[in-house]
């Protein structure tokens, strides 16, 4: 479904991704963990070309992602949920949800609104359709952002630290929505620090540090007997709570 092949990324002199090879299968829930600055966000941002790899190839559905085709290919195949939600503040929630379906996926207003209400129900915020995003709490905004991603009806959703900017008490409501989604046949790539979520939802977990993939495996293998020294250290620090 998504394939990264020998992907390297430099920011100036900084080598942030070092020969990343990663394949995500259809319907798979892939969770990427690792300390900050390890390149996990950059990895997921390369999957829709928000970052362009310095070298290497990215394939979606077997088609190579290039500057030339990125707008159309991304539109058709992937959606993204961001750490900072990035809802459009000048539009109501409903308009946030219907904009892309109407303007990019050629749905009628009626179809787009039906779709929007359907996914507002999924995230439990139907009553917020007509308010502006800034009037909502962080957790609510992120649930709206997830509904917006769902409205595009793409088969892949990328989550870039979706709960990292939230107050602790609103994290769970967002995770609950994501757990619900994970039961569907959507391909999910999730960068997160939520180990409980990773354990519960992931088909496979990838551990990154210093721009490299150091370990890959099922949640059980990962948490029960991690072999990599860096991973042990990392898990030791993060699971303390």
């Amino acid at each position, binding site marked *: 479904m998504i394939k990264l092949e020998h992907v390297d990324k430099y920011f100036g002199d900084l080598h942030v991704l070092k020969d990343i090879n990663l394949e995500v299968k259809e319907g798979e829930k892939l969770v990427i963990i690792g300390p900050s600055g390890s390149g996990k966000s950059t990895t997921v941002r390369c999957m829709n070309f928000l970052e362009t790899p310095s070298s290497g190839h990215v394939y979606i559905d077997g088609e190579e992602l290039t500057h030339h085709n990125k707008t159309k290919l991304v*539109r058709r195949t992937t959606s993204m949920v961001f750490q900072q939600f*990035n809802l459009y503040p000048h539009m109501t929630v409903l308009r946030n949800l219907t904009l892309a379906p109407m*303007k990019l996926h050629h749905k009628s207003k009626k179809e787009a609104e039906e779709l929007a209400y359907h996914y507002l129900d999924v995230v439990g915020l139907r009553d917020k359709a007509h308010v502006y995003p800034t*009037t909502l709490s962080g957790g*609510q905004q992120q649930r709206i952002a997830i509904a917006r991603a769902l409205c595009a009806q793409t088969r892949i959703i990328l989550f870039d630290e979706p709960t990292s900017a939230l107050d602790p008490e609103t994290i769970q409501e967002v995770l609950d929505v994501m757990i619900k989604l994970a039961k569907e046949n959507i391909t999910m790539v999730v960068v997160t620090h939520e180990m409980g979520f990773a354990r519960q939802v992931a088909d496979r977990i990838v551990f990154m540090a210093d721009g490299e993939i150091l370990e890959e495996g099922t949640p059980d293998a990962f948490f029960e007997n991690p072999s990599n020294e860096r991973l042990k250290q990392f898990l030791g620090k993060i699971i303390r709570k």
Partner: protein
Amino acid sequence: MSGLFSAEAWNKVWLYRGTFLLGLESTALTALFGLILALVIGIVLGLFATSGKKPLAFVARVYVEVIQNTPVLLQMCFLYYALAFSDLSIGIINTGILTLGIYHGAYVAEVVRAGIESIPRGQFEAAASQGFGYLGRMYYIILPQSIKIILPPMVNQVVNLIKNTSCLYIVGGTDLISVTYNFVTGENTGGAYAPAYILSGLLFFIVCCPLSSLASMWEISLKKRDVRSGQKARSAERMV
């Protein structure tokens, strides 16, 4: 008869009021078309500057620096005489439209650039991740948000543009300032300095003051709205 309180001088100005109004018309015409040209140049260059494409940004930068760091008077003379010597006589009004369009285009470009740059990166990224191309991103997401940042300084540019029509005097213009100066130094009309300048100033004021008040009212109401939505957001957070 140049005195402020000379009835004769006021009378003369009143007699020639039509001349002043013609000057105002010429100023308004120059300003209107100059503004349209400035907007076109400014929006295109503002988009160039924020396009992320180095050659385009470079073109915009060079244009803005050259225009902003040379006097508008010089630009006007240059254009007028350069065109005249190459047998391209385009007339005074067109010279004014071109010069002011080119000059204020540079400032409008900076206003547009600043407006676009004030929008958080995440907005561009969210739009790109949905599959909006450059124009769609700008049209639906970025420009509607930057417009409130762009508008107040834009209105100031309009006011400056109207006042800068006075530069046309140096190439023998028919604008309000040129008309006023010709009036006070004219053979038949000369001498009524104070009343002529007062009338001329008044006419400028009547046109420009509503515009700049509009700009400041706009700014105040936008600030209020931001405060209000901020408060709403905070009280919503408390409720959760």
